[in-house]
């Protein structure tokens, strides 16, 4: 996962802090949910960068740490609702893994609001937009991620 310079969390031109948020979205539900949000003309912040994954369980804990390393201020994982996984059970496994990972990050003293899991179906464009707006607001409030970041990535 390479992020180019324009993707770094840099102060917007107004000088206000603009966080960088990475959203891992499963191909079958949440990515389509983002599409629904777009075609319904619902807006969500442009500093949320979507990475499409085949299934929420494709997300390795290392992906999440690497996103933080490369300058993400928040990471959200979106998948199909439990029971609706395209591969039948992928999101059940993802749910256990993420629960343990988030708990571990909290244990290491990293702000627990920076990570989140949300189940969003292809039809829930409104939920997608609302979730993203709310998450962006949380991250805005928390400010820059300093605890889990490669400081050499600073510009």
């Amino acid at each position, binding site marked *: 996962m390479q992020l180019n310079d324009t993707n770094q969390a840099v102060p917007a031109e107004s000088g206000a802090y603009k966080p960088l948020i990475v959203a891992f979205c499963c191909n079958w539900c949440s990515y389509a949910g983002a599409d629904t949000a777009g075609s319904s003309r619902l807006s969500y912040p442009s500093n949320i960068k979507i990475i499409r994954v085949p299934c929420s369980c494709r997300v390795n804990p290392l992906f999440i740490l690497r996103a933080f390393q490369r300058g993400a201020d928040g990471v959200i994982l979106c998948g199909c609702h*439990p029971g609706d996984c395209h591969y039948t059970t992928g999101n*059940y496994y993802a749910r256990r893994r993420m*629960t343990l990972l988030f708990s*571990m990050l909290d244990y290491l003293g990293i702000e627990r609001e920076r990570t989140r899991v949300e189940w969003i179906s292809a039809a829930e464009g409104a939920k997608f937009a609302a979730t993203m707006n709310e998450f962006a607001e949380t991250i805005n409030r928390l400010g820059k991620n300093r605890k889990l970041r490669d400081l050499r990535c600073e510009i």
Partner: protein
Amino acid sequence: MRDIREKLLKKIHELFDAGVVDRVVGWKAGEFCYDVTPALFNAGNIDEILYDAFCGPNQSKFLVKGAEGGEKKILALLKPCDTYSYNQLITEHRIDPEKIYALGIPCTGMVDINKIRALGISGILGIEEDGENLKIETLYGTESCKKADVLLERCLVCKGKNHVAGDELLIPDEEAPEVPKCAERMTEVEKLEAMSPEERFNWWRSQLSKCIRCNACRNACPACTCRTCVFDNPSSGVSAKVNTNDFEENMFHIIRAFHVAGRCTDCGECSRVCPQNIPLHLLNRKFIKDIDEFYGEYQAGAEPNVRGPLISYTEQDVEPSIVMTRG
């Protein structure tokens, strides 16, 4: 311990003479008597096998390579807590029990050389158990200390004297000496949980920043038996041999602990081998504590061939947001 060793050597000779096994993984002293490592022995040098209070190393991992080849079975000497790792390796098809003769041996607790040193005892030449005390032969004369004061972390929270796997026991578990449990397993974890996030962060920074990325924790771990480790894969982007910054220190330890979550038997090898004395078992125990709380009590390796908590699920599992709400 001396009588146990004599009994053990007699038993090993019997097994060799009967043609059951043709090699054995035992313990060998390194440069110093407290510097004990597992080593492969054959009929010629059985009598050099050590078994004393410094024989902490968990041998089960050495069976992965050790069981390959050979005409007969390989003899494994398993302390009660090693049998958990042994079961876990069988579950994961990393070892074939058909190629191994597992002999369960009793254990009365292993000692931590760092704790002995901290008492101001140096120049150690030998160790002898004397009831609840240890007699330590040193360059400067004989010293003694209470064994309970110098036990390894894992022995303070001993899983008990019962073997959960093996073909034969040297002494029946009922006749083996009782092992006192000196501490509650989760006390340290709970202490950390009670701190504020800022305090926790600073505490972990003070520990993890000591890491020199020697990979000893990974190499000694009986659960870490992947043929190619993610940390050895140059295209993973995390295979650097040295932590270049504090992110990598955190990342290495989170991922190392995560990769054994649900499979870690809490044998404590990671903390024992750490040259920087980082309490790595506290990361593993956090995962164990969470698994117990969220998905029900689970002890990895208690029996072979069960599905671990991270490769199973229920429809009613808690949501990850529980981390936010449980306070």
